[in-house]
């Protein structure tokens, strides 16, 4: 079909139509039946599906999600089983080789998806939730609250991630809940800044003035009037944050602040084995590291596609 041969239309191409505001996607005509909007959404969905990046991202992500959901039920070996020979190079029986204690690297990598996929999305969600609340207050209230909070956010962003994480883990102990909380707190100021700037653009619009003229409370204006209009950047932020959360969780377990051993966490696997690269046992480090990379890339590919479509509408 000729439809398939056409290059996908980028969002920037859709919105740049001079003097013709009726062309903006989702900008349906007067007297449009409600189906017009549904159709716009369907067309957007069609565009996103046509992006190779999106398809590729979804494919990789689903592989890891299946691994996380089924875990030991589909791994070729028991990820915690020590019976195989140590440091066997990749071969038919152990495609990813075995580690120093003779555990199957492939099974450990597959099982390791569970920890990261449990922690990262939740941490990202919590970070976005707190960030939205803080950013909304900063952007809407402005004044001294914004000034003070902005300075604190900036100071917080200047601290090294690892330092804060180590501090939290040493005082609160290392568990997946602490890791989730730490990542959420780390993300809050970043999300807050994004939300703040989106809210700043909204608060000067006349619908906010109109709400004040009929005597609405600040809370109502913030969360009922303004919030739905800044959902676009928030959704984008959420998908982007999931990618970063994967990375951060892996970093934390690499420095030993993640879930305790013998959990087959990817970051922990890299950290346990990277010393043996020098002896030629590259597979024990390479495959968990590659797992981290593919998951981050998959999430980012999806995030990118979501972002383009969100910004276009």
């Amino acid at each position, binding site marked *: 079909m000729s*439809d398939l041969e*056409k290059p*996908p*239309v980028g969002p*920037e*191409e*859709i919105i*740049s*139509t*001079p*003097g*013709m*505001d*009726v*062309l903006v*996607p*989702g*900008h*349906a*005509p*007067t*007297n*449009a*039946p*409600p189906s*017009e*909007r549904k159709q*716009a959404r369907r*067309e*957007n969905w*069609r*565009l996103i599906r*046509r992006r190779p990046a999106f398809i590729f991202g979804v494919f990789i992500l689903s592989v890891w999600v299946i691994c996380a959901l089924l875990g030991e039920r589909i791994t070729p070996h028991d990820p915690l089983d020590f019976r195989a020979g140590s440091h066997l190079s990749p071969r038919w029986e152990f495609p990813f080789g075995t580690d120093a204690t003779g555990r199957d690297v492939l099974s450990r990598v597959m099982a390791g998806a569970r920890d990261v996929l449990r922690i990262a999305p939740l941490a990202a969600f919590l970070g976005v939730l707190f960030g939205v609340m803080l950013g909304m207050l900063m952007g809407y209230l402005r004044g001294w609250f914004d000034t003070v909070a902005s300075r604190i956010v900036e100071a917080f962003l200047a601290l090294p991630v690892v330092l804060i994480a180590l501090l939290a883990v040493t005082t609160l102990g290392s568990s997946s809940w602490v890791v989730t909380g730490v990542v959420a707190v780390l993300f809050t100021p970043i999300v807050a800044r994004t939300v703040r700037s989106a809210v700043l653009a909204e608060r000067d*619009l*006349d*619908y906010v*003035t*109109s709400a*004040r*003229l*009929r*005597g*609405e409370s600040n809370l109502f204006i913030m969360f009922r*009037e303004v919030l*739905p*209009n800044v*959902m676009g950047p928030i959704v984008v932020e959420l998908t982007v944050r999931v990618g970063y959360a994967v990375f951060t969780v892996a970093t934390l377990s690499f420095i030993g602040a993640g879930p305790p051993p013998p959990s087959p966490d990817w970051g922990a696997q890299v950290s346990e084995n990277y010393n043996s690269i020098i002896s030629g046992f590259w597979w024990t480090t390479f495959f968990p590291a590659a797992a981290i990379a593919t998951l981050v890339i998959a999430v980012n590919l999806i995030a990118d596609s979501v972002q383009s479509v969100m910004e276009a509408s």
Partner: protein
Amino acid sequence: MSTLADSTTTAVAAALAVEDLEVAYTVRGIDRAVLRGVSFTVAPGETFGLVGESGCGKSTSAYAALRYLPSNGKILHGRVMVAGKDVTGMTTSELQAFRAHDASMVYQDPAQAMNPTLRVGRQIIESFTLLGQSKEQAAASALEALRKVRIADPARVMDRYPFQLSGGMQQRVVIAMALACNPKLLVLDEPTTGLDATVEAEVLDLVRVLSRESGAAVLLIAHNLGIIRALCDRVGVMYAGKIVEEGPSSEVFDNPQHPYTVGLLRSLPRHGVRKTERALTTIPGILPLIGTDLPTCVFLDRCPIASDLCRSIEPPWVPVGTDGTRFTRCHHPDLITEMKEDLPVVPISLLAPSATQPDVLELSHVSKTFRQRNLSVPALVDVELGLSEGETLGIVGESGSGKSTLAKAMLGIETVDEGGVVSMGGEAVPSPTGSRSAENKRSMQMVFQNPDSALNRSWSVRRILMRSVKKLTGIKGEEANKRVEALAAHLRLTPRHLDLKPRQLSGGLKQRVAIARAFAGDPRIVVCDEPTSALDVSVQAAILNLLADLQAEQKTSYVFITHDMGVVRYLADRIAVMYLGRIQEVGSTDDVFNGPNHPYTEALLSAIPSVDGEEKVRIRLDGEIPSPANPPTGCVFHPRCPRVIMGVCDVTEPLLLEVSPGHSMRCHIPIDELRVLQNTPVTLG
């Protein structure tokens, strides 16, 4: 096709020849037709205007003329010839050379056309060095170019940054840059839309003179018919991607030959018509969405004289008259005259504002001073105003005159300075709005300029109206629902519209929703801040009619802020003219339009380009509106006043004095002298 034959004969001489151009935009993967075969030619030294509602393809035609379409736009068919060169067939490098040497474009917003971080001089010099001049040559050319656009002190202007120049000055600099290459074609896309009337008049004068001097063909895009009339030799009226009528602009506007042109012209408040005399005529229906399949006449759905012929066969491009300069795309140009008589004219009966009742709104000694660091900026100075029941008070003035601040002070969005009192029905009301009683909030509501900004885009129309009904009237449940539906019906919105989101509505419908929201609690006063300036003229007419109807029915008072003198004349009972935060003149609409006037009002009135082509003596205002932070001594208008009396006006500020019953102004010149100076016919009574 006859159009092609017509244009090829003149193509040799034409500076711009657009031939049967078809353009489509790819939106969400589908090609949607925008231009459906546009043909026109512009001769060297000629100014050609394109008019029509927004979305009809005016700007696309202009961009296509320079092959400057957005990346999702493509030319499907037809040719564009500029000075004998085929623009449609050019390679990228040819196109670059063409844009550098043969054609220039001036956009709507001059501030965006310049680099804010570079001095003006450097940017102009750059446009000359691009043409191959040396640094020294270019600097000299730049000075000369600025002189050409009537900038008095070019050396000083070159040394400034764009933000240090006023809008009018910026636009002149942009025009100077556009003319640098001595283009054969100059495209102006709404060049004065963002400018004030007095500045607009100056820029238009400049364009007129320059196009004569340079011999460039000018293609002007404007939605303001008055501007087109004032500036263009010929005009093309566009509708849904086609030119439906073409001819010399005076003839097209005085004797339109296409039903769409007739509709456009009728929807303007012209010839001093007032709301008490008749309603404005509107064009029913809406512009078809781009990409809509329009096999026959593009105007069919909205045409009052459409016949079966129009439904079956596309109307041809037929000449009107015998001189071969006028064309229309209509099967029935002979029925146009009938259409003129056919349309009903509904007079609106209005209560004359009575003087006996207390004012519904009164402002006394209202001042507003903004503090910026250590500077105090007086935005409103000692404003005294009253508004009686069922009255419309028009507030006019250029941007920066304090119109919007005045509205905000009334509504309590801004707190007024100590000593100023805003009272409603004889009772002082506090500000900010939050501290006002529910009754006071209900009584005064606002209609904003831009409905896109004023309506929450993620709420449905029903939710928008429901919330205001509940909040302002306290009605709940099923009863509130009924009231929302009644309100919508009253504003001629169908129940179907209630479940749509604002972005699914056209500009006019959105503004109706905004008006419905303001009327949710039966307000006594509605402040309208330029409610029609973002709308097309045919939609504007419908909104103005609606406002007049609502007022006649509910005896609502309006404070109507606008810069459009035609609109204010139609709707207002009284007019206040503001300059630099002060009311310079206030009086009945007749007083203000018949004069004698304050010299500022006089200049403002003379600056409006008229669609009727009346000859007017224009009063030029020199210089720019001074900064309110540092107002001139004496009368704040004296540095720009053409009738200034030095030694008096620059020393003491005149008081706002009544010159005749209900007509006050702030001027040292005695009223009788003004009457003589302005040559006002003496009217008694």
